[in-house]
Structure formats: C-alpha cells, structure tokens
C-alpha cells in the first residue's frame, strides 16, 4: 500500500490564497490528490481554482471531512497554524514552512503527539504516495509506483534520487521528506517503523545528512526492528564542523553529527550505504 497518504486522504491547504499555497494546491490536485478545501483567515466563503476557502480549520474540517493539512503560512504564524490543525483533529499535518523558531516547533510537535496527530516537517517537501497522491511540494513528474519507501531529510537531493530510481524502473510506495530542521515531527525511526509495518513496502531508502544523531538512532532501530533491506546515502562527508550547511539542522557541533559516525552506525546495522547519491539505484537493484 503506502504510508501516511493513501486513498482516504483528504487534504486542506492552510495559506491557500498565497502564491505558494495556490500553486501547490493545484499541483496536488493535478497529481490526483483529493484537495477538499483551503483556509485563509478573512477569505472564507471564496474559492481558489474551485477549491472552497474557509476562515478556520475547524470549519474546513467539519464541512469537508478533511483529515490532512498542508501548511504554507509564514514562519511567525506557523505554530498557531499547526495548533489549529491538531486542535481540529487532523491526523496528518505537513508543514512546508521553513525558518520556524525551534521552540515553536517543539511545542507543536508535543501538542500533536499528545493528540495523536502526525506532523511531517517543518521545512520539508511533504509526502508523496505515487498510487494515491501527494501532500506538499515535491515535483510531480519524477515518481513511479513501486515497492520502495523513501525517507529523506533533504528536498532536492531526494528528487535527484527518486528520479534516478524511477528511471531505473524502481517505483515507490511513499516518499517522505521529513525535513531539514533540528526539531521535526517525524524522524527516521518513526518513518522506518511505518514502512516496516506497511505490506506494500519491500525495501527502504533513507537519505540522511550531517547534524544530530537521528541516523545513528535509525541504525539502532533498524538493527532491532526492521526486517526489510535498507539503503542509505548520507550527505555532508566533506562539510566542516561548526558551520550550518544550508539546513538549520545540518551542522556538526561539539564533535557530534559527522557523516562518518552516521555511515559507520548504518553499516553496522546492515544498511548498504552509497558513496554517491547516484549509486542508490544500482545498490537497490543489486538487493
């Protein structure tokens, strides 16, 4: 099947009347996703490309039966937007917005956990299940249906890798962009657990990068709980310590978070780690 986004997914877009919101709402719909509504305070009652707009998520959820949201609101309003979505009972909350203060992210991640909602991101490209739809901003063209689950901290690098997989005839169940921030709603371990449970997923590709210890924790989890083959690429082998490499979370600090440490941990857990992102398809094919 797929994880997170499937046949039952009904999406609203928070910030739908903005430039990005409008563009991606349309793109999601064109991909086949059920985009049932949008929310922009003060614009309720109107529509965007035929998608009804509401003033509040509560109204949108009650009137459309939405269970998922894709959030494009500016960073300073993001915490409130996630609170609103979780409060309205939406089960999947995809936060595209970048540059959210980490204390805000901590709070909305805690609140979501308390209420049983799944947060993806922030600062992420979203979730795409080629057979069902996409929630987020991933380019539509590169996907193929198949049995590989992809989890990635990086956007464009993922597109590069997914594109290469698809060109090599290797399709995907779901691609999850977990985001490049230090505090994220769903980490490798949580996404791996979902793919391990999903009967449609036979193999898993994970794309990590320097910073933090999420890949090391994933390695421990894989050793203990994952029976499916896992392939990985870790970006940032040549990054110097103490510098943020584009992502807020991509920083080697106090000797922790190096690519070497991550690669070693993953290999120790039986994961095939590619030296180059372009090597992933060949690795997966080799099995």
């Amino acid at each position, binding site marked *: 099947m797929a994880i997170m986004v499937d046949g039952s997914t009904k999406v609203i877009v928070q910030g739908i009347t903005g430039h990005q919101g409008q563009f991606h709402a349309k793109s999601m719909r064109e991909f086949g996703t059920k985009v049932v509504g949008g929310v922009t305070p003060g614009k309720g009652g109107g529509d965007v490309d035929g998608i009804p707009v509401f003033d509040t998520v509560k109204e949108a959820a009650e009137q459309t039966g939405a269970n998922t949201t894709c959030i494009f609101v500016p960073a300073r309003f993001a915490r409130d937007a996630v609170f609103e979505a979780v409060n309205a009972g939406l089960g999947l909350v995809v936060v595209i917005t970048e540059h959210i203060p980490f204390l805000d992210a901590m709070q909305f991640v805690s609140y979501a956990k308390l209420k049983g909602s799944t947060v993806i991101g922030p600062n992420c490209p979203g979730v795409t299940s080629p057979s069902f739809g996409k929630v987020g901003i991933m380019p539509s063209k590169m996907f193929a249906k198949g049995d590989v689950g992809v989890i990635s901290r990086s956007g464009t690098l993922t597109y590069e890798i997914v594109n290469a997989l698809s060109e090599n005839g290797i399709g995907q169940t779901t691609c999850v962009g977990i985001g490049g921030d230090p505090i994220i709603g769903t980490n490798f371990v949580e996404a791996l657990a979902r793919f391990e449970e999903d009967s449609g997923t036979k193999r898993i590709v994970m794309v990590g990068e320097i910073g933090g210890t999420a890949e090391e924790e994933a390695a421990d989890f894989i050793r203990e709980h994952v029976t499916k083959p896992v392939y990985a690429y870790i970006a940032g082998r040549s990054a110097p310590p103490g510098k943020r490499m584009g992502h807020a979370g991509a920083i080697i600090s106090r000797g922790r978070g190096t690519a070497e440490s991550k690669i070693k941990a993953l290999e120790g857990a039986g994961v095939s780690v590619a030296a*180059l992102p372009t090597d992933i398809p060949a690795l997966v094919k080799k099995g």
Partner: protein
Amino acid sequence: MKLFEYRAKQLMEKYGIPIPRGVLAKSPADISGAEYPVAVKAQVLVGGRGKAGGIKFASTTDEARARSKEILSMTIKGEKVKSVLLEERLDVKRELYLSFVMDRSSRSILMMASADGGVEIENVPHERISMVQVPPFGYSQFMGRILKSTFGLGDDQGKQADALARSLYSMFVAEDCELAEINPLVVTSSGKVIAADSKITINDDSLFRHPEFSEDIDDLTPLEQRAKEEDIAFVQLDGNIGVIANGAGLTMATLDILTLNGGKAGVFLDLGGTDDPRKVTKALALMKDARPAVIFLNIFGGITKCDTVASGVKDAVETVGIDIPIVARIRGVNDDIAREILKGIGIESSTDLIEAARKAVRAAVS
C-alpha cells in the same frame, strides 16, 4: 547566532543571574572602573581562547592596561580581538557546569549539569553529567533537587543554584536560545554561586522576535554576513571550487562528489527553492566576490526551475560580469530551455553529475 561573552552576561544579568563585576574595553584607554585583581578576557566567538593566551590577569591598572593592549592586538584562530572584558577575579572554591540546550533527539530542552566544571563538557565522562529533559510546562522544582544532588551542594548553595537555573531557563525560552551555557559556574569561598563564563547561542529563526540582536555580529565572514542579509545559504570553505546548487542536501552532496573526485569546494551556496532569477544573479555576484577558481553550478530542477536559474546566470554574466569559469550540470524541469540559455552565453552544460563534477575539478586545478 553566537553572542560575545559580555553580551551573554548582560543578558544573564537581565534575568537576575549573578555574574562577576566587569568592564568592557575596546582600547587600553577604556579600562577605568575595573576591580582588582582583574581577569582580562578576549571577546571572541571562537572557542579555546584561554589556551591561545586570550585570558590574562592583572593586579594594578598599569598591568591591566598592558595586558589589555597585548590581547587587543591578538588574532585568535583567525578572529581579530576587538574588545576585552575586565572582570573581578573570583575567589573560586569550586567549578561546576550548567547549561540548557536544544536537544534534537528528545525534541525538548535539555538541562545538563556536572560537578566537573571548567573543562569542555565534551571531555567530561558521560556518567558524570546529569541530563534532564525539561517538561514542556517549564522548569519544575525537582530539577533544582537534581542540581543540588549533582553538584553536591548544601541547602543555601543548592537554593542559589536552583534559582540561577530557573532564571537561566527563563532566559533560554524568552530569548529563544539554542544554547545557554555557564562553564564554569563558580562557588566562591564566601559561598556565592556565580556565572563565571557564559556562552549563548540565539536561534537564528527567532530573530524576528528579537530585533535587539540585529546589531550583534555573528561569527560570520563578511561575505557570509552579506549572504545572510540576502537570505542565501552561503558558507566559505577551504577549497577553490565555488558550488552553487539548489537545496541544502544537493549542495552538500555536490561538495562530497567533488571531494571524491579529487577537488575541494571553496564555497557552499544553496539557492534554496526560488522562482526569482534575481536571487540567482545575486548569488553569482556573491560567488564572484568569493574568488573561487571555478564555479560549479548543479541544478536539479523542481520547484526551482532550470530556466529560472539559467536566466539569472545570464543576467549575472551580462550585468555583474562573472570573470570566473562556470561548469554547469542541469537536470529536471525545463532543463532543455536552460541549456539553450546557457549555451547562448557560452556555457556548456551536462546532464550527468559525475561527468560535470570531474570537469569542474579539472578546471579548478588548471
């Protein structure tokens, strides 16, 4: 952004945390008001200033002026010392460690405490550090009890440590810190608990809530500072290839590919997701000023369309005047249009990442 020690201490004082009395001086003439004996401390953002001779002691004004002059003429790990902090020398009985830090794994704020202060916390054995995830509702009394027990303090100093930690936590949250560290946290012979050294890092993403930090200078190079103002992720490195890519992960991977092929990046420049050719033009202007031997442009078009990037490059070449060779690898949305645009300004582009990377490495060594 990292704060200088004196700024960190100003902030701590604002939240009621006891700090040593001190005077900031930008020249040896400024040192009046210092209390003797005094410690003269270089104000730099790099670590390890003590070992580098950036902390000296003095008993008289003349001595202090001499030491200040020495330190103000130093450059520590590439960072020029622009000011010194003259602080009363504390009568140190014990040196402890206390910090609050953003913890990625637990997605919470972590309190770290150790009775082994005065050394870098990385060098303290793990079992000698108490780590407590702060509950989402904030600092709670039990944390003070853990501190008292970890530090091995009596009731009076335990209370001081508790109050200090509570204030430090309040500051951490109110000022959006990523790190607020006191090392050493000193117990003086007279029984006072004082923040002898202070490190604070403010969460960059929160700066819209803290305009007062806009005048502070981070540990960025002038070009990095300029990039920051233009909202471009830009990091100066040791090599000579200037990498421009879209997306942090792809940019990092590009660095890695160059390294694997014998090259070395001198600039990391992530365009991010953009549909504005002007941002690309600005990025190239920055790159020009960074003076790499070659610019390696690696674009996988998606949100950022290939032709948008090519247009920006064209504009840069035509208006800014890029006098550095450009090697391009272009794939994804509208890559055919992009290749035509680049061809028009004399840039040949490849679709193959490895091939292009090798070409860039060759261009850099030539």
